[in-house]
């Protein structure tokens, strides 16, 4: 299973953190710090995999964002690259030519999308269409409910 996924910028700022294993805040911060440092130190020509503690780290850079996943020993590194790519495609489709700013200003959406693609560290839906449809419907549900309530609240978070 995937133990966690981190998204961070070239400056090391965290943009998303999804943890599928229980760890204290302190431990999460420590791991994040270490990994960010390690990945940012990699040269561009190096391969996308590295061993870290007892895990395998698969990372890929898309524009200004690093997508970094920690998988277990028996997991397939190459398919994890595909998982990362699929997630980026989903974000891209949803936001329309996604960039880092989209993820910054709409971080909750990024989480919602991820939660329709992976669950408990495993792939739950392999159809791009189905994931996007689910998000769409949830967004719609939010809007409709907001209308029921009337003026005050925001229709985008």
């Amino acid at each position, binding site marked *: 299973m995937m133990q966690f996924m981190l998204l961070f910028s070239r400056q090391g700022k965290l943009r998303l953190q999804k943890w599928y294993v229980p760890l204290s805040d302190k431990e999460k911060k420590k791991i994040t710090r270490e990994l960010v440092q390690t990945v940012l130190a990699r040269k561009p020509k190096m391969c996308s995999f590295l061993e870290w503690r007892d895990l395998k780290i698969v990372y890929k850079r898309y524009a200004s964002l690093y997508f970094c996943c920690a998988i277990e020993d028996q997991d*397939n590194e190459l398919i994890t690259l595909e998982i990362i790519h699929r997630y980026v495609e989903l974000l891209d489709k949803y936001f329309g030519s996604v960039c*880092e700013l989209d993820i910054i200003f709409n971080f909750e959406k990024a989480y919602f999308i991820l939660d329709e693609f992976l669950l408990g560290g495993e792939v739950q839906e392999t*159809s791009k269409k189905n994931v996007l449809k689910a998000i769409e419907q949830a967004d719609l*549900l939010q809007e409709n409910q907001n209308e029921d309530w009337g003026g005050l609240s925001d229709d985008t*978070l």
Partner: protein
Amino acid sequence: MRVEESLQRGWSQRPAALPRPARMVLPSLKLQELIQEIRGAKTQAQEREVIQKECAHIRAAFREGDAPQRHLQLAKLLYVHMLGYPAHFGQMECLKLIASPRFTDKRVGYLGAMLLLDERQDAHLLITNSIKNDLSQGTQPVQGLALCTLSTMGSAEMCRDLANEVEKLLLRPSPYVRKKAVLAAVHMIRKVPELSDIFLPPCTQLLHERHHGILMGTVTLITELCERNPAALTHFRQVVPQLVQILRTLVISGYSAEHSVAGVSDPFLQVQVLRLLRILGRNHDESSEAMNDMLAQVATNTDTSRNAGNAVLYETVLTIVDIRSASGLRVLAVNILGRFLLNNDKNIRYVALTSLLRLVQSDHSAVQRHRPTVVECLREPDASLSRRALELSLALVNSSNIRSMTQELQGFLESCPVDLRADCASGILLAAERFAPTKRWHIDTIMRVLTTAGAHVRDDAVANLTQLIGGAEELHAYSVHRLYSALAADISQQPLVQVAAWCIGEYGDLLLSGSYEETEPLQVQEEEVLMLLEKVLQSHLSLPATRGYALTALMKLSTRLQGDNNRIRRVVSIYGSCLDIELQQRAVEYNALFRKYDHMRSAILEKMPLVEHGGPQDDEPGEGKEKPWSPKREVQSPTEPPTSNLLDLLDLLDSASGDAQPPPALDLMPGDSLLHLLDLPSKTPSLAPIPGLKVFDREGLQINLSFVRPPETPALLLITATASNTSKSDVTHFVFQAAVPKSFQLQLQIPSGDTVPAQGGPPITQVLRVLNPNKAPLRMRLRLTYNHFGQSVQEIFEVKDFPLDTWQ
């Protein structure tokens, strides 16, 4: 437009600020405004200020219990949390939001729960009820949220409470919910393995689903069940045909817009199925047989132009080599890996190297075929690849390729990153040891390694090389010439310097006598040799051990060289006052060899006999460097425990007669001890019969002392204390301690045991060595502690009536 490009574009096209909706300005910031402001902060301090101010607002809002705004406030808090600021005061708000009927609230609330709550806090249990309600009564999106949260942060307790709810959702109509329920089950089993009982039965039916999401989850669930439970593994072997069918459908059905990636049908599902097949086929002929053809088909038909196809291929290869596959299929798998090695994509090369490393033991000849490609990978600039290539290369060395492989590895050693040097060096040395075609090649190889990476070799490399050279008589001249040249060129590589010094010392005469046929005629003058060794001695680059080698070598040369020894004597006497204790000691002893024991010098400094590989140095007199040290060590090790015993004893015996003894200090006094300690460990004492002495007899436990005085060492008395037991009860925890008057030295060796079984069982023996150079009358104080007849006993007494022969 490709994703990467679109992402690049985004920067330039985004407006600087997002449009604000026209409405009443609220006292605190909207989420996006907050984010804007935080990003606008120029310093860390400024950022902190903005956030602290906003958090105060958020806290106030939480306190006021403003329901419609709660989700906004929490969202802001979650953002701030991601930046690393504390957000624990939002935990309760998550609970409230989750309990709200509004979907917006639940969405943010559950997200908050996943980010802020975990099983370490008691608060997390409070959401169990909400989850239960949402699972049983919620709309599909709500059920989805609940299942997602449960799978992300659900603790064992929560899982136990909610297992039944999840089970119910496994077979409900909506695929959207079912696919999540299945994965929730996976998480629950990981947390509470006993729940396997609930989730095993539905699996077979779920496997008939067409929905890829449900299939995906089901295959994952079955995998998890099988990995945890051998009974489940046996049970699920029956689904192998079904899994094969799923795979077949995927591979044959061809392109499906919804699920294809780069021309490969649902690679995620394929990989998952292949992994399960691996687990089911392992160690099971029938299952392996059933999947053989399909694996071959996937292996040959998958499109390898893009990563997706290679991912499937990779998983296929892993499965083929792990199950009981036909040999043809195995060869195919290894060949695929070989092809991967040639792939332009570094990632593919990486997984290939990793997999080949796993296979190198079991499929050695198949992997050997790819050796040239593996060796190519040594040149990878990427360290994680070259490391794997190194490991694999070392594993592929055998007697037929040793020369060429060593050549390659030596080349790698010269340029590889520092952290790989040690492994590479020791790998080469090990391979050389195992497969060296000739001794000369072996020596050359080790020398080359020492020259290239001397600082990184293991400590025993020096010993190994000296042993190797020592044992190859025909190569002595060759070795000493080569080592001399190497040393003359560079005295910084310590292991090399040490070996060279040793060699020059041993075979200095061969060095001077002329050239060895294949090396260039090397006319070496005596003075040059001495100068070089002195240079080593004086250099700040030399480690203390190295200087020891050099000094000893100089000493040996005193018997090998024609000229007079004044220069050597001078150097040796200078080092007699060296600050380094070890060097000082050696120098002083060597000085003694020049003076008092000059008649013995040539015998002591004779060439070492040819040693057997792996054996310790022979304990014969006339050895060179080793001798002064080994006896000292040999005698010292048995005394370590008893020395402390002695001190304990001395502490407790507060006798006024001054029995206090310093622990036997074994410094060699110049001139004396060298000889007498030479003899101590190895010679068995020849017996001049001295009567024994019974010193203790109580309730069946007897202690008898027997004595031996070796004739060559008048000052030494060997006492063997024997404890025997004729009573009906065992004597246990027996400890024997002794003390002697000031002029004596005492060492106790390790006793044979601490138990004397009853009724004349095997006695405990312990040897005591007493040194009595002044021939003073022998007295001893003995202390015994032991358990006998269920009681602990302590006895202290003095023994005075030793036979005269023991000390006169």
